[in-house]
């Protein structure tokens, strides 16, 4: 079993010739920058391009106690062919669900290229002993999950027990094997951007393939400034070490306009290399229909009512 190296003073990156500074974040200036980026005006072809990309980057999600095999089946169908009337609309990146539905989804999505992402590690609270979290991770991977969305132990993080958080991520990462690991920071519970920056570095150092903002169960979920803050960490890590880490804002992104704002922020912060589902995802459930509506509007010049888009 993997063990974490001793951490001097907390949480320096173990990797790389030159360690990135943990650094700090100025909240006012960060929010101002995000607001400026949100004002970019994206029109016509560039908008269509963005909307198409937003679908390809989408982790279509259902994480409810009331989820049934039927609901999951419907979501899988939607993910593979989002717009029954327009075959040029691409498929989504993944379907994100609870472990119970991994097998069912895996079957339905076989051969489609749409991945199965499962939450794990006592989502959404993370309040479970480490060994059970690791066992849960192993189980979902065995059931066929291509991607694992874990939550960090916010209690440990906020009380300063960074090595506990780090060790846990390292062990979960190992349990993932080939499955991609997304680490949910639950930024809405971290309180400050400084904490978000710190937690992002910690997760990346421990081996996260993606860092993800939220479970969607806590408000605020993803915001543009918090995602920008995480992008800046990813950029620092890339420039220090050459390692490319993905980012997934999740929760609260319901409108195409918001999705385009995230893509603008991504483009102007990390550049075109990050404009791929391998490095950026949207965690969303209701965003897809709005994007479809906008695509149809861009293509036909007219808005159509909600009745022309399937509710799944």
């Amino acid at each position, binding site marked *: 079993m993997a063990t974490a190296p001793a951490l001097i003073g907390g949480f320096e990156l173990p990797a*790389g010739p030159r360690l990135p*500074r943990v650094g700090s974040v100025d909240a006012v200036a960060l929010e101002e920058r995000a607001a*400026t980026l949100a004002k970019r005006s994206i029109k016509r072809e560039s*908008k269509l*391009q963005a909307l198409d990309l937003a679908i390809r980057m989408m982790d279509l999600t259902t994480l409810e106690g009331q989820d049934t095999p039927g609901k999951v089946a419907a979501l899988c169908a939607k993910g593979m062919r989002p717009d029954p009337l327009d075959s040029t609309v691409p498929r989504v990146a993944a379907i994100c669900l609870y472990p119970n539905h991994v097998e069912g989804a895996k079957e339905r999505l076989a051969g489609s290229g749409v991945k199965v992402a499962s939450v794990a590690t006592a989502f959404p609270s993370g309040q479970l002993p480490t060994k059970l979290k690791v066992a849960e991770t192993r189980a979902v991977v065995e059931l066929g999950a291509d991607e694992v969305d874990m939550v960090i132990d916010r209690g440990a993080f906020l009380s300063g027990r960074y090595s506990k958080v780090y060790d846990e991520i*390292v062990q979960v990462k190992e349990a993932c094997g080939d499955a991609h690991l997304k680490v949910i920071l639950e930024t809405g519970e971290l309180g400050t951007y400084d904490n978000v920056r710190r937690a992002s570095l910690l997760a990346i150092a421990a081996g996260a393939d993606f860092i993800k903002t939220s479970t969607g169960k806590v408000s605020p979920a993803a915001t543009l400034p918090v995602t920008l803050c995480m992008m800046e960490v990813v950029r620092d890590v890339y*420039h220090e070490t050459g390692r490319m880490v993905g980012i997934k804002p999740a929760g609260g992104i319901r409108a195409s306009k918001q999705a385009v704002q995230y893509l603008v922020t991504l483009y102007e912060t990390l550049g075109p290399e990050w404009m791929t589902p*391998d*490095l950026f995802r949207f965690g969303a459930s209701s965003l897809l229909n709005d994007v479809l509506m906008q695509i149809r509007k861009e293509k036909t010049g007219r808005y159509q009512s909600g009745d022309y888009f399937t509710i799944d």
Partner: protein
Amino acid sequence: MAQVEKRTASVPALLEWEYAPAPEARDIVQIRERYGLFVGGEEVEPRSGEWFESISPSTEEILFEAALAGAEDVDLAVSAARGAFDNGWAKLAPAERAKYLYRIARIIQERSRELAVAESLDGGKPIRESRDVDLPLAAAHFFYYAGWADKLEYAYPNRTPRPLGVAAQIIPWNFPLLMLSWKIAPALACGNTVVLKPAETTPLTALLFADICRQAELPPGVVNIVTGDGTTGGHLVRHGGIDKLAFTGSTEVGKLIMRELAGRDVRLTLELGGKAANIVFDDAALDQAVEGIVNGIYFNQGHVCCAGSRLLVQESIYEPLLEKLKRRLSTLRVGDPLDKNTDVGAINSKAQLDRITELVASGEAEGAEMYQPDCRLPERGYWFVPTLFTNVAQSHRIAQEEIFGPVLSVLTFRTPEEAVEKANNTPYGLSAGVWTEKGSRILWMVERLRAGVVWANTFNRFDPTSPFGGYKESGFGREGGRHGLAPYLRFE
């Protein structure tokens, strides 16, 4: 543990994402072929019989003709202002004066889209800035000083404030409407009347403001606007009928004005050039400091008297900061000022472009190292790529002279003492910026920096409630806040 790897993308990334043009509609502003002078509440033909053209610096197209006011025209304007002062404005109940100012403020807000487009067309600044900075601030100044109009006695307890009379005001081309507001709002709030001369290259919004005065039913003669060039300004400065002169512009002209007014009973405030130091300590939030540096020098193409044109970086973070800064520079979008996605617009005039070009050449000749991002510039119009100089010595011209363009000189320091010493080592003293997470260090720096405004962890942030003005060759007198009232008052 976590191995370093460069993941190969299984899904190809977008190579480039071109933003489609997103121009603000230009037809919201109706520009006439010709504009006369605004004297005594009427638009009048110039007695001088002369006109000059105003062009759009982003296309070099001729937008309109404005009157070039001669000595006689200036005299008429001053007489109109004097008449309005004597015949009621000064004696009007202060709360009534306030009503006019509130009215003007609201009309500016109502017509803000039109004014923003006009500002960007005539001056070349990006619509994003005229829309989000110039216009809201211009309206805010009128609102703020409207509030003071009937509270002057509370601003100066146990004294009796009285207006001065006719205020002559000469404003620059970098923030045409905003500078007009900085000047006119406090002057009127204090009970003065005004003759304002807008800059030669950017008279449009002042001429539209004349229309706003009529719309607000401001009594005739309270505000007069005389367009023209330096000679018009000269007539105004030399006119015997003015009681107060407020000038914002170059240090060179400021000195001429001061000579001219020596020995005359005319109150003077000058807001002149600057060569501000933006000081970044190693504990600053780096990504946000980079934003502040960019906003400090590339905002409004660097046509800002308080621009953070000298970057002082603590040596221990010099490399990572420069790396970040250069990367950020390459994402600046230079081009059509009316495009909503433009970050850096056109240089205001050919003359200014020549001056920037000359100073940048001197920087290269003196041995500083120049960095410019790849950048496609439009073929017509006046443009300059956002530029950064490293290896700059304190003795280089680019570290001493005001460039007034998108050009940043980067210097380093090791200790806070050295930072203060270098920051103060300039004939100017208008503004400065300090970037650090440490509150006590901010206060320590503020006590020692000789600059009228010191920003901490931000830059180029303005507010009508905050006084603004300079030390040394950056001028004297304060505009904004309660301090901004004093230059327009005498005390009995």
